């Protein structure tokens, strides 16, 4: 090999070896700053995916994994919270609540994500104030295309820690494009039977091509409620009668900066 090519080759090869070694050793910190690692070790040692990656509508796909629990017939104080998808979900959920004797409170925080909810005590506050004993979470839409979805794991865990032992259903984000892995991460992290996988559902969208329309959101809630008996902690979820009319979703809006 020509000498200048040897020099270049050494630069590239030695660099690669350095990054390869770093990726396999424990975290290296320099003055409080931890060096981030190239994902060599994850990529090279990754085992075949043990979690089903079925992107089709999940209600049936989850059925095999979850042991059907007995439906809890006690009326619940339900909280649904999350990003801008929450409002339309809450409007339909309120009709289910009315039909089945539950009370619904909703907290809609536009553009929020797991980090935002994890970093403040807003969720604990509302759980305490509304004396919540059932939770629906609508988060993940603003993290669908993050390059490193695994970085959200601490925030997801923190949100679930705040919910503690309260039964919950995490409503997966309604993908408008294939996500970078947040759905798989949520499915892995949530309690078995507590994650409703939305990706794969075909939902009519608003003009922004992102948010499902109100009608589509209603159908989305209907799907969740049909799946409810197969969830980890089923509650009464009879379909609202045609005469149910409008129901109060008790929505609290959290406002964004400068808006």
């Amino acid at each position, binding site marked *: 090999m020509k000498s200048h090519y040897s020099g270049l080759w050494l*630069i590239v090869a030695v660099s690669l070896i350095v990054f390869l070694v770093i990726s396999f050793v424990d975290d290296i910190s320099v003055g409080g700053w931890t060096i981030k690692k190239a994902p060599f070790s994850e990529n*090279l040692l990754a085992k075949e995916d043990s979690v089903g990656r079925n992107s089709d509508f999940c209600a049936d796909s989850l059925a095999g994994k979850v042991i059907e629990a007995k439906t809890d017939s006690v009326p619940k104080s339900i909280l649904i919270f999350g990003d801008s998808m929450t409002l339309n979900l809450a409007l339909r959920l309120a009709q289910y609540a009315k039909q089945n004797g539950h009370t619904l409170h909703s907290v809609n925080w536009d553009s929020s994500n797991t980090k935002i909810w994890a970093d403040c005590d807003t969720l604990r506050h509302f759980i305490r104030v509304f004396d919540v004993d059932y939770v629906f979470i609508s988060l993940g839409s603003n993290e669908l295309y*993050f390059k490193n979805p695994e970085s959200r794991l601490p925030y997801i865990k923190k949100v679930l820690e705040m919910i503690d032992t309260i039964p919950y259903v995490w409503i997966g984000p309604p993908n408008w494009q294939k996500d970078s892995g947040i759905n798989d991460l949520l499915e892995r992290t949530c309690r078995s039977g507590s994650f409703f996988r939305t990706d794969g559902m075909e939902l009519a969208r608003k003009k*922004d091509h992102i948010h499902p329309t109100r009608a589509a959101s209603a159908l989305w809630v209907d799907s969740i409620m049909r799946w409810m008996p197969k969830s980890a902690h089923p509650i009464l979820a009879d379909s609202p009668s045609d005469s149910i009319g409008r129901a109060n979703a008790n929505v609290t809006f959290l406002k964004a900066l*400068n808006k």
Partner: protein
Amino acid sequence: MMLAEISETLLTVVRNIADMLLYDAEAPMLFSSGLFWLLFIFFLPVYALLKKSKTKMVVFVVGFSLYFYYKSSGLFFLMLIGTSLVDWLLSHAIAKLERRGPRLAVMWLSVLVSLSILGYFKYANFFLWNWNQMVQGNFQPLDLILPVGISFYTFQSISYVVDVYKKRIAPTESWLDYLFFLSFFPALVAGPIVRADYFLPQIEENRRATKENIYGGLWLIIIGIVKKAIIADYIAQYNDLIFNDPSLYTGMQTLMGVLGYTMQIYCDFSGYSDMAIGLALIMGFHLGLNFDSPYQSRNLTEFWRRWHISLSSWLRDYVYIPLGGNRKGTVRTYVNNFLTMLIGGLWHGAAWKFVFWGAMHGVGLAIHKACKPWLDRIPDNWLVSFVSWAITFVYVSLLWVFFRAADFESSVLIIKNIFVGFDINQFPQFFEVRMVWCIMMLALIVMHFVPQSWTDACGRVFVKSPWIVKFLVFVAVVQLVIEFMTEEVVPFIYFQF
């Protein structure tokens, strides 16, 4: 037990490496990816050994390029081979024919074959959508995958055949040489659009790469990585938020998103070009300059002389001049200019927004040409320079909105948001919560406006520096990529609720 675990781990590693080497539509091979550099470690010594023999070098590089294309586009690499064979045979047919008529017919046959393939993969669904709109039809869109880089290599093949027809170049004696030119991996997926008359003689000469070529190439790659994998990929996250949901943001936030996208598209595109040019230089090939600080331009004509130079010069030579250029009167000059930009817009993507973007650039160029006699009379001082620059920059930036936004309505909303809802008082708060983004933008603007001689001087210093300095710079840049790769921009930062 221990042995079993080791063998299982080894098997896992081998299986994962094998998986990585196979085609994956989700993971095309990019110059900034770890896999590319892993392969480059194997490519480089073999290339250095074979470089002495032109034939061996060509066969090896063609093989690597075809694998590179397979990794990005799967079996479409066979189509690339087919296209090159057809072009090569037709170019020889053109060279053998004496009379102009048959030569012209064969040339058009080749151009039409190339354009048909491009049209089918890139524009068929766009055509069907428009047809459905016009006649209330309900043709279902075709399930098509766009082969990576098809727009670039199609233009290269057209220029080759046209140049053979015009007797600017002779067809290559060997089909492999032509396949080398068409599939040359540094320029294959995102340009620059290499011209045959510039590149083919370099294959023939097979010049050895000097130290300046090799380390100058590495310097360009480093610059490209900084632009593409660090700056563009990071600032894109904020810009995407603005463009995906413009109704949620204030005028000031939206303006930052638009400025961010203006710089992002430059860094993204020119960064990838830099990497391509650098890789080619390491191999001893020159691809030419593709971006020349375009946002320094003081008018739109200058902008198009500095932006994606290989495309704009291709459009000039193979569309504008054949249409008549400026030889058929003032009105025809404007029309030709406009049509050329329209085609340039459509080349960027199969959607009306790209057509509109191209058309508005055409209008801008026509206005500049019309006003030029009057503009030339204005004394050239710093104020005039600044105003000219500002008008050009604002016009180009606003047109990027149409290029990037999902649809026309979103574009209008974004622009309206800026003009109606802008409040400078929000900037300190914005800076506080998006400091890294702001610093990156500032650094980028400074980098863009420093004189080219400074950048060249840095390159020369790098080339002359000791090996260890080059190594440390390379490692530092790659580590920065890793640091920013996992850095996510949150959609909103809330102070209160």
